[in-house]
């Protein structure tokens, strides 16, 4: 089981971002108040959650590195108090270049954070500016150096490709610069346009010079090649890692594992029941202040939906899944649960022809939603 902690504040909002993130309030103490509220939510979590050990903790945001090591330590302490946290659990914190210094990195290490996911996004100054990000490529390099100096042995970088005005070669160059830093893990995301963002609005008006789909695909393929050269292999649609360095936390999502989310808008999944907290920080603070629940909505998946989701999530993984695993999990063969589907996908060249396994071909991975659609009710 995993724990996700959402820290919703950012110094600024990037042009492409529609995550549940808000500008850091001016009021002194806003971060401390949020950290206290999250600790309270953890303390009040229903007892029935106390199943299974926590094998991974992930601080996402927002920009969690805006919070002080003491605030992070406080939340971790609450988690250890409430749950059994496995020795050697993966504890990841998302951070942005320019928000870190040697002292805070030391503090995070001491608090128990052992993995950093650094939002590099691009190594082109011009592109970073266009994304609305305030840091420089040099600050990203510096962040990696400082993290190593502080003893972090497990580092991941995020990059985005398919950006406005970007060629596949530009994207490749960014990825190569990231890989040159000797990181263990790279997440390379194709840009997604979200409605309620500046990019979304510009794109709707036709004012965003987006590269054509063919070039985005080529950029992704070039990045995969560069990763392979650097010893990082793809294990999921957007994720590459050195052997044994896959993100355990992300794997929980893809394997339909259980995780409990804390903080504004955090999502939880416990054995087929998915629920989520209120998104707005103010509302979240009010609800938790009285010791109340922050849950806003939930859904319990029908067995059929759960099965379809299982297939979809595993198809995101490079290894796919074995027919035997499906049959074990659902008590019947895949071809009986979805007659004719696998055959059609094989015929269209979207699934690889491999005995006993279901996994997308490279083309199938680019068209994953076409592959997954017939499995979703």
């Amino acid at each position, binding site marked *: 089981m995993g724990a996700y902690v959402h820290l919703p504040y950012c110094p600024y909002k990037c042009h492409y971002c529609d*995550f549940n993130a808000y500008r850091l309030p001016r009021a002194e103490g806003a971060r401390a108040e949020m950290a206290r509220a999250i600790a309270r939510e953890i303390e009040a979590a229903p007892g029935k959650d106390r199943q299974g050990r926590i094998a991974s903790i992930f601080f996402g945001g927002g920009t969690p590195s805006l919070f002080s090591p003491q605030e992070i330590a406080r939340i971790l302490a609450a988690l250890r108090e409430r749950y059994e946290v496995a020795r050697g659990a993966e504890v990841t914190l998302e951070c942005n270049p320019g928000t870190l210094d040697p002292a805070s990195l030391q503090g995070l290490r001491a608090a128990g954070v052992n993995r950093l996911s650094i939002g590099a996004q691009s190594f082109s100054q011009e592109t970073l500016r266009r994304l609305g990000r305030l840091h420089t490529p040099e600050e990203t390099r510096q962040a990696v150096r400082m993290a190593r100096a502080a003893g972090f042995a497990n580092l991941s970088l995020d990059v985005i490709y398919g950006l406005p005005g970007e060629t596949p070669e530009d994207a490749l160059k960014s990825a190569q610069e990231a890989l040159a830093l000797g990181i263990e893990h790279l997440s390379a995301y194709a840009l997604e346009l979200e409605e309620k963002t500046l990019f979304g609005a510009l794109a709707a008006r036709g004012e965003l010079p987006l590269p054509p789909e063919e070039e985005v695909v080529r950029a992704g393929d070039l990045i995969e090649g560069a990763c392979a050269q650097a010893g990082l292999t793809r294990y999921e649609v957007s994720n590459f890692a050195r052997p044994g360095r896959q993100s355990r936390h992300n794997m929980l999502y893809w394997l339909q594992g259980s995780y409990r989310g804390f903080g504004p808008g955090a*999502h939880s999944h416990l054995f087929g029941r*998915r629920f*989520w907290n209120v998104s707005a920080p103010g509302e979240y603070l009010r609800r938790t202040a009285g010791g109340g629940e922050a849950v806003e909505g939930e859904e319990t998946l029908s067995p059929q939906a759960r099965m379809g989701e299982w297939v979809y999530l595993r198809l995101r993984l490079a290894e796919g899944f074995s027919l035997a695993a499906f049959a074990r999990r659902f008590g019947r063969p895949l071809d009986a649960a979805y007659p004719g589907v696998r055959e059609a996908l094989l015929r269209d060249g979207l699934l690889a022809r491999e005995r006993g396994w279901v996994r997308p071909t490279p083309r199938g991975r*680019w*068209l*994953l939603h*076409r592959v997954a*659609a017939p499995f979703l009710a």
Partner: protein
Amino acid sequence: MKGQQAIRNFCIIAHIDHGKSTLADRLIEATGTLAAREMQEQVLDSMDLERERGITIKAQAVRLDYVRADGSRYELNLIDTPGHVDFSYEVSRSLAACEGALLVIDAAQGVEAQTLANLYLALEHDLEIIPVINKIDLPQADPDRVRRELEQIGLDPDSAVLASAKEGTGIGEILEAVVERVPPPSGEEEAALRALIFDSHFDSYRGVVCHVRVVEGALRLGGRIRLMATGAAYEVTDLGTFRPAPTAADRLATGEVGYFAAAIKNVRDARVGDTVTSAERGAGEPLPGYRPAVPMVFAGLYPSEPSKYDLLREALERLQLNDAALSFEPETSGALGFGFRCGFLGLLHLEIVQERLEREYDIDLVVTAPSVVYTVHYQGGAVERIENPAALRPERGIEAIEEPYVEATVIAPTSFVGPVMELCQERRGQFKTIDYPSPDRAVLSYLLPLGEIMYDFFDQLKSRTRGYASLDYQLAGDRPGDLVRVDVLLNGEAVDALSFIVHRDEAPSQGRAVCEKLREVIPRQLFDVPVQAAVGGRVLARETIRALRKDVLAKCYGGDITRKRKLLEKQKEGKKRMRRLGQVEVPQEAFMAVLRRGD
């Protein structure tokens, strides 16, 4: 006053929006047929009914009891007429039930195409015309200009009544004019019964309810009647007048207007325009002017899900109970499977039927582009009427193809004559005449192929004349044209449901336009899909729908799988509305691309 001398049957004719319904409401109110208090409620109710019944209650008859200042009492029957060119035959039957007409003209807009068309129809039926210049309360009202226009179209300008139905002015004068000027009916009271059916609707309790005008003799409750067009005999089970709620009576006398029911099961058996006579002592001749409803526009209706074929047939049968003009026959399309070729009076009629099928019967439809009926002369003398372009057999050798024409009347300010003529030329119109009823208005008459004006002609006319032009048309027979069928190929396979017939000269440009439109509306597939337009195997145009390369969400943020799955499910929902043609998924709008190619 007694008998027919006390009866006046009249209708209101007007261009759309010139205030016909408001005037009708005022007349009902002024004669106390409904107290002002009841007005809102009752009249609205009947409008709801009308909406529910869609197009079938196209005309309504209301009996008004009017008492003049001298105490004499009159029975005024107000017969409403439908307002859309699709229903011009129904208009003519309503007019045939009257002796007079109020011709309502907007004091600001003046005479419009429909005003004229309705006037000519009324004059053909020898009706007494009472011009009513309405909306004189408007600041832009110019009654003097309208009077001059009346003179131009051959009416006595001094005979016009000035009114504002909205404010209730002129209503008394109108009622007086109806009594004074509309002649009373003068049918033979002792003659055999002859009553004109000018409307009918289906009622699930009483069967078909016919709206009739008794021309000669009398219609009695319990009487045996015969419908002259079909020859079928019935017994009158229910009879009365609308005031405006149905009010039972035991007879309708000569000259009267009302309704009857006789356990008639289908509106087809009691058609508008038919003559009701007595079963025992039948009239020798029916009343003149009957003609069966003839569908003008045909389209294929296919259920999106093949399993709903039977449901679609049942739904069409039910709609037909109440809609004599709707026709349908089973049809098979190579592309769409089993469906029906349906005939409609016009596009409005088609849209109403489509909407009712989707809304009331919950059937998702694929509707092919509407087509007119072509008459094809094959070599060797065979002649066929073709309602579906796919039925054309070029390989049999075609000598000639004829298409239906209409005579269109367009009225527009003189400054827009140029654009109007240009539009009519583009649509292969043949110029006939131009008249100037007043210095700033022109009346243009054109012969136009029905197929050219069926879809967007009226919209184009409006947009090119900034909304000032008005249009009316009547069928003017078939004429030969140099026509060819354009076939559309998707992924190399001809799709019969996408074929269309055009003039040979327009085939290349129309073919290109259809290919472009299809490229826009057909979503990208897993492979390149060529779209071609061809005439007789010769390709005129080609487009390619490029293969989809990427369809995957990059991120799953913070474990929010729900949102991701919902996105995928939505995508899938969208696909349900698609039709699979061979390997290609095609949305419903693709079938209309043939029509909207000009957009």
